[in-house]
Structures are given as structure tokens and as C-alpha cells.
């Protein structure tokens, strides 16, 4: 089936009513599932992480299998700040973690963005593996294979203790997600975001119209790195622990699957893909601790075959088409 023939000429900045849905769902979740708030926080964190991947994959077309490198950098930065340096104020820790991840992203990006395709893919993978090995070796700082213990968080804004039920953690993650989302939405709606779409659609033509393609991609990569670092830091802060798997290949793969399930290049794909993946994982693991991955695999195959643009793409195709064609 063809894509909608008409599309807003340059996407409007006005907030559509459907855009409120995920935030309503997140708020409802807080009241309806008080026993699941820890899973809820993790979902919000993965939404943020998947959204940062969307910025480079969905908008700029940079395929990365090493996005966990930046997530892990943020997680370890926030963790080490608290466990070793005694810096346990959450908000400043979050900002510092984001900046450190941004610097790492900028430096890595400066090298790997000279390449394309498989080479780029392999380099992103290599960076993650190197960082994971580094974290594994530096046991004194990272706790190595045992994970980083001793992370404690001061009350949020000096007021809200991180409680056992995860209420503060959930609302903290939700607030951070919202702020980063608003920034991301502004960026993808800007001329810069439009230019990234151009690079994804046709890099050759972007060169030919005088776009500094490399510089634009590096900026996108750095911004995505900051976001991924913030997501990682949120995980470290809300669980008060950092495991070596924040830098794992599996995490890079998971986040990509989440994004593809939800749909790339829409920002909101992350809001669908991450919850679906994680809730399914949670439920399937209960049903069948051994074979839950089979369920995820089947869903992924079905998505690729029947909804190659993800669940949002599917919804857009059937639901929104009529509205878009209206003048």
C-alpha cells in the first residue's frame, strides 16, 4: 500500500491532540499501577534512550549499533560521581552526565562520521565494545563485573526522597523525559531538523545544495549523545546501581528494536516501541522464562513484514490518512 499522498508541507509546530496521549498514559500509569512503578521508570528511561536514537537514525539516517556507548557513559558518570566523588545531587549529576556523554559522542562522531554504511555500523559497535572492556578493567572505578555499588541519591530538589516504591523515581524520569522531549521536538521541527531529513533522504543532493553534511551530522550525533547520556544517568540514579550491561551490545540492539517496533523518524515511535517491548518482555518472561525472546522475535518479524514503518507508520497509514488529505 502507498504512503499518504499528501503531507503537511513543512510540519506544523502546533500541538496535535493525539500528542497528549502518551503523557496522559504516563500520568495514568502512575495512579493505576503503583506496584509497577519501577518497571514504569525503566520504560520512561528507555523511551528517552530510543528517542535519542531516533534523532540520529530516524532523522539523520545514521545507523548505529553502539548507542549504548553513550547511554553507558552517562550511567557511569552519574554513578561514579555519587559513589566515588560524593556528588549525589541528582539534577546537577544528570547535567554533568549528559555533558560527558556529549563530549564522548562528539569525539567518537568526529571520527566515525567520516564513514558510511557497514563501516560506520562496525565502528559504532567497536566503540561500545571498547568502552565496555574499559569499564570491565577499571574495577576500582566501576566495580567491574559486579557492578557499581554505593550510588546514593540526595532528595530531589532537596525535597523529595527517592522512596522504595519508586514514586519519586517515576515522576523524576517523567519530568526529565518531558523536558528533553520538548527540546527534541523543537530541534526536529527546526530548519536544522529539516536539513537532517534532507541528509537521510539524499545525502548527495545535500552536498550539491551546499549543506555542510558532516558538520550537521556531527551536531545531531552530539545532541543525541547528550540525550542518551541523560537516559543512562537516570537509570543509574533511580536504581542507585550501575551494571556493566549499560554498555552492552544487547542494550544497543534492544533500543534499536524498540525504535523499529514503534516507527522511526517520528519521535513518538519511542513512546510506542519502548513500552510495548518492555511490557511484553515482562509478561512473556513470567509466562515462559526460557522462551520469552521468541515472542519478541515473532513480533519483530511481524513488524518488519507487515508494518515496515513501525506501529506508528501503520497507524498513520490507516488512521491519519483521511485527515491529512483534508485541506
Amino acid at each position, binding site marked *: 500500500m502507498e504512503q499518504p499522498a499528501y503531507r503537511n508541507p513543512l510540519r506544523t509546530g502546533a500541538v496535535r491532540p493525539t500528542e497528549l496521549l502518551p503523557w496522559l498514559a504516563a500520568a495514568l500509569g502512575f495512579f493505576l499501577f503503583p506496584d509497577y512503578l519501577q518497571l514504569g521508570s525503566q520504560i520512561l528511561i528507555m523511551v528517552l534512550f530510543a528517542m535519542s536514537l531516533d534523532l540520529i537514525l530516524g532523522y539523520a539516517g545514521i545507523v548505529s549499533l553502539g548507542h549504548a556507548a553513550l547511554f553507558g557513559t552517562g550511567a557511569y558518570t552519574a554513578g561514579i560521581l555519587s559513589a566515588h566523588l560524593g556528588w549525589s545531587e541528582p539534577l546537577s549529576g544528570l547535567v554533568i552526565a549528559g555533558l560527558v556523554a556529549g563530549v564522548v559522542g562528539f569525539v567518537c562522531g568526529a571520527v566515525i562520521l567520516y564513514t558510511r554504511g557497514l563501516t560506520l555500523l562496525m565502528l559504532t559497535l567497536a566503540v561500545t565494545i571498547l568502552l565496555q572492556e574499559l569499564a570491565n578493567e577499571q574495577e576500582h572505578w566501576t566495580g567491574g563485573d559486579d557492578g557499581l555499588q554505593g550510588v546514593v541519591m540526595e532528595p530531589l530538589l532537596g525535597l523529595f526522597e527517592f522512596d522504595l516504591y519508586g514514586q519519586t523515581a517515576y515522576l523524576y524520569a517523567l519530568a526529565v523525559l518531558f523536558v528533553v522531549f520538548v527540546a527534541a521536538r523543537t530541534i526536529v521541527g527546526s530548519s536544522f531538523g529539516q536539513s537532517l531529513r534532507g541528509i537521510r533522504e539524499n545525502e548527495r543532493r545535500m552536498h*550539491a545544495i*551546499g549543506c555542510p553534511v558532516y558538520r550537521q551530522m556531527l551536531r545531531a550525533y552530539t545532541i543525541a549523545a547528550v540525550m542518551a547520556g541523560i537516559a543512562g544517568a537516570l537509570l543509574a540514579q533511580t536504581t542507585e546501581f550501575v551494571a556493566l550491561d549499560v554498555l552492552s551490545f544487547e542494550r544497543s540492539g534492544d533500543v534499536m528494536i524498540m525504535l523499529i517496533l514503534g516507527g522511526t523518524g517520528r519521535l513518538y515511535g519511542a513512546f510506542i516501541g519502548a513500552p510495548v517491548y518492555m511490557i511484553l518482555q515482562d509478561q512473556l518472561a513470567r509466562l515462559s522464562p526460557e522462551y520469552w525472546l521468541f515472542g519478541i522475535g515473532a513480533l519483530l518479524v511481524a513488524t518488519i513484514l507487515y508494518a515496515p514503518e513501525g506501529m506508528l507508520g501503520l497507524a498513520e497509514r490507516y488512521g491519519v490518512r483521511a485527515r491529512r488529505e483534508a485541506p
Partner: protein
Amino acid sequence: MSEPLLEVRNLCKSFGALVVADEVSLALRPGARHALIGPNGAGKTTLVNLITGTVEPSGGVILLGGHDVTRWSQARRVKHGLARTFQINTLFRGLSVLENVCMAISERRAVAAKLWQRADARADVIAEGMELLESVKLDGDARRLVRELPYGRQRLVELAIALGLRPTVLLLDEPAAGVPSAESHVLLEAVEALPESMAVLMIEHDMDIVFRFAQRVTVLVQGAILTEGAPAEVGGDPRVQEVYLGENAELHGGRR
């Protein structure tokens, strides 16, 4: 006579033993309508790639508005007024026609690097985009995705993107390639309506189009210039007829 906007001196390029540009020199003055013809594999597109900077020359000099741009990046040359179209459509297929031309307009206006400005707040970019689309009669398709347009309309978008850059020098690589002759007149009208002061170099196979469009013609064979002159002169040159026009020579040459 005014200074050339684009000048190429003794441009050379070889890939190993294969020479694709052999001491090529040409100059385009303001208002030039110059056609570049030659058999397949003569190095016409390579010459465009050399001039725009996608391929680095082995020797020679490229001057744009008097500046030596031989070592400049592609983007920098574009900012100095050089634009091109592609023989094979090179478009943003998943975006609307308006978005396609606005991409070039934002680049030219240097707003494409702005992070915090909303795309839809760029009312003047969009207004200019619509104006441009009207001028090439694409305004009816502004909101359609490029990949859904018929090929001939897509060729028009190919041209419109380049025009969005408001170039002083425009290189057209077979603008009507692949367009059925019934539709090609729209494209040719758009080419003929180009601003008079613009210097245009057009690669073209169709001799009818060359005669209609060009004031001067350069014939390229195996990377080297065989001859340059007015269309009638070149069309009547037996060497040209031999290497390029082949058996149809008299048919086409005879029209003039």
C-alpha cells in the same frame, strides 16, 4: 566583454590509465547558454563533477567569479553561486515538493543550521518556495511527495531545487533525460525562462534541444575538446558528424 563567471583552464583528470578529462578549457560569461555534447563516455558528467567539486582534478584550474576554487569544498562553491542538476534524479523522495525546494532555499539563506527556529515559522522561506514552484508550474503539486510524481514532474523538481539556490552559474546535466517528448516542452520552457544574467552550461544529447537552446556548443570526445563554436558551425563540422552525430548527421544538421 564581461569577465567570465566560470572559467575552466586545462582541467585534467584520469583514473589510472583512463583519461576522462584532457586539458579541458572553457569559459561561461554572464548570460551564456552553452551546450556540452559528446558521445557516451566522453566525460561530460565527469566534467560537471570536476567543476562542482565532487571529483578532484589531477590538474588545471577552476575559477568561479574570478576566485580560484579548484581546492574548495563543494559546499563553498555552492555558496559562491554554483549550482547543478543531476542526470539521474537526485531528490528528497520522501518529502513534499515544497520541502524539496525549501531545503535549497534554507541552505542559501543560511538558516539550515538553526536549531531553535521552527520550520513552519520560516514563512518567508516557504513564500519564496511557493513563488519558485509557481514559476516552474509545480505549485499544484507543492504538497505531494516527490516519489509520487510522474517522472517528468520530478525532472522539474530537479531543476527547481537548483533554482532555489539562485545560482549565477548553473550546470544542467541532461535536464530532459528520460522525459517523453510530449512532456519535455514544459521542461524546456522552464530552461528557456531562466534569468538572462545566469550563465548556463547544459549537457544534452538531443540535437534539437541544443539548437534551440545554445549560443555555443562544445564537443567533448574521450575527455578532450574536439571543437567549440556556434551550433550551426559545430553541426556542420564533418569531424563532429563522424564522432558524434553518426548516421543521423544530415537529418539534424540539415535543419539549420
